């Protein structure tokens, strides 16, 4: 839907608007089908990540051995003293930055600035890819240098490694899938596929991307900080 139509809905707000939308013989949400579908999918995906995090918190309570100190494990030292969580901080920063470029891409899409949209999506995908790359570095360091395995680790509770590989792995898969999705959208934007259909697809891909970022914030808070 164009922004012009969205503005016409202006006075149509709050609870009355909601009731009107749902009680009338029109679509319940004033959005394209794909966008409604993405929203519902994301709610479903939220349940998946919530179950992962609840499961993680549960085994952290039930495990009989002490939980390792994340700030020491996830520390990197540049020449001198180890800086706790520095890599994770950089990764988080990059992912949040990519949300910014994605938002710009959506805006440029609606302005029909095709090439700017294309490059901004590419930048987002590049940030995403570098995030996955750093995650690969983090995994390598933990597996090769520190001997962390899904079934055990030298620091304490074996569930630490299990949860780490499962949750960050599942999130990493989401980011990787997002990068592929974004590149596909970027390619089609450049080819002019959406010139007539409209650029809602950029926003739909953006929804997914922001969701993946948001999930990372929770993983960061619950797994790395808690």
């Amino acid at each position, binding site marked *: 839907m164009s922004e012009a139509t969205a503005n016409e809905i202006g006075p149509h707000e709050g609870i009355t608007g909601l009731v*009107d939308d749902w009680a009338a013989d029109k679509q319940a949400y004033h959005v394209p089908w794909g966008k409604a579908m993405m929203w519902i999918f994301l709610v479903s995906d939220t349940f*998946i990540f919530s179950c992962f995090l609840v499961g993680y918190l*549960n085994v952290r309570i039930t495990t009989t*051995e002490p939980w390792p100190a994340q700030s020491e494990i996830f520390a990197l030292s540049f020449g001198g003293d180890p800086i706790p969580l520095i890599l994770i901080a950089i990764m988080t920063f990059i992912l949040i930055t990519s949300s910014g470029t994605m938002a710009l891409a959506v805006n440029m899409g609606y302005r029909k600035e095709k090439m700017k949209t294309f490059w901004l999506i590419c930048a987002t995908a590049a940030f995403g890819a570098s995030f996955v790359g750093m995650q690969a570095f983090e995994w390598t360091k933990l597996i090769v240098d520190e001997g962390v395995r899904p079934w055990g680790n030298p620091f304490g509770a*074996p569930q630490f490694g299990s949860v780490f590989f499962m949750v960050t792995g599942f999130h990493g898969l989401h980011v990787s899938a997002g990068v592929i999705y974004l590149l596909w959208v970027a390619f089609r934007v450049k080819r002019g596929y959406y010139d007539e259909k409209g650029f809602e697809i950029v926003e739909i891909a953006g929804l997914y991307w922001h969701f993946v970022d948001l999930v990372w914030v929770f993983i960061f808070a619950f797994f790395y900080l808690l």
Partner: protein
Amino acid sequence: MAYVPLADRDSEMEMHHPHTWIGRWVFCQDHKVIAIQYGSIAVFTGLVGLILSLLFRMQLGFPETADYIDPSFYYQAVTMHGMIMVVYLLTALFLGGFGNYLIPLMCGARDMVFPFMNMLSVWVFLVSVIILMASFFVSGGPTGGGWTLYPPQTNLAGTPGHDMGIVLMLVSLGVFIVATTMGGLNYVVTVLQYRCRGLTMMRLPLSVWGIFIATILALFAFPALLVAAIMMLFDILLGTSFFMPAIIESGAPLDHNGGSPVLFQHLFWFFGHPEVYIVALPAFGLVSDVLSVHARKNIFGYRMMVWAIIAIGGLSFIVWAHHMYVSGMHPYFGFFFATTTLIIAVPTALKVYNWVLTLWEGDIRLNAPMYFAIGFIFTFIHGGLTGLFLGNVVIDLPLSDTYFVVAHFHMVMGVSPVLVVFAAIYHWYPKMSGRMFHEGMAKLHFWCTFLGTYAIYLPMHYLGFLGVPRRYYALGTTDFLPQSAQDLNTAITIAALFVGASQLLFFINIIWSLRNGPKADPNPWGAASLEWHTPDTPPKHGNWGESLPTVYRWAYDYSVPGAHEDFIPQNTPESEEPTVDEQHFDPDQDESLADV
């Protein structure tokens, strides 16, 4: 204010008419073909489940003669029977089968919103079934840990299928969840965004409401199962200890410690209880429509029925731990979950009253679908009442894991939904195939199934009160069990074999009538809802010919005083026929009118 009936924007819907045979019947994007593919795969899988049940019933009824069934196979059969029936038959048939067929037709849509994804859904579902069936052919056979797959038992060496069988089961479930998600997103968005002009949510037939809410439950409940499956796969394949506590097996400690088996139970039942309503709600919806059409009366209390469906759907997410009373639970939690469980009885009972009141003083036509629909009311009341027993902690504890539980859930989510499946297949068969089935054979099928299932499950309640435990390979010599328990088991097995064999009546009828049945009238039952008023029977790709229909009333205008016939199609304008539409808005509130 802007009026955005997307259904009028045919441009958004890219109809892709295939020209090859494969495009039309195999990799087809038409929701009706996909529905029949979904349904056929589900029914085939269900037949496997049925045969498995007959096999283990043989062992229970005739332990001496059926010695070709060893304990391992018995457990595998019980496990696979449960999982197949709950997930691969009923879930797939109601959502993938009936949901696909009825939602676009009842919503006045040309197809699902994303036909390609819909097609992917059925093929991914087929893959999941193939993976599931493959577990019969791997070393060790399928898993035998019970359909609830509780760890650590399922993963230990003593359980059949602990190596490959359980892995294939979990992978198959994961693939199934992908299929359900792709289909489910389509159903939900179609209902929300792609209704035709005039069709408000509160004019939708209850079938659509039931399937719609059940699909939402599926989208929110299956994630818990997916997570449980992933964690369990990690436990088995990578040696993690999510669900595995420290265990000593055959005198040697296993390489696990610190996991929580109860966590699995929570995740499983957070999926498992909504799953009950994923099966039940579509059945509620479909049976409401069948009852209303054949009683020539509007469904009693339509709005109440809709809100009851929504309330049951919401409540189903906060009752899961009533499956876990014996797992050990803080008494306050037991109190909470018992309370929420019993609260569900309120909207459910309300639905039962409304079905009965729909029949009250109706002009009842005892057609074959109506037999099954009325039979459903009986079996559902029986299954529902025993649910009240089991929802209470103190009554559940002694009855847990006895045949009383088996009888309860088979009555409420085995027999009842299956009776609705038959009612619905007979009811919509003329629309799907363009032919009529053999009425007498269908009625015979009903009596065999209805009386036969009672012969199976009523005695099981009694066995449960005697304390006969479920899932036992053989009862053996137990002092507290009289000989009559074994005699009853034999009788139950005979009834089960009879019911199993009588399903042939159904298949013969359906397949024979496809070619030889008399040509069906486009609307043989005189139904008002939209799917009976397509230009073609069976409907062609795109459903509605040149232009989409417009709806002027709800789906239940039966026996309206002053009307020309005893029903008024949903797409008949108010100017031509009177209206008793409960939903008849006054023009100030009805936006579609206010706009004009």
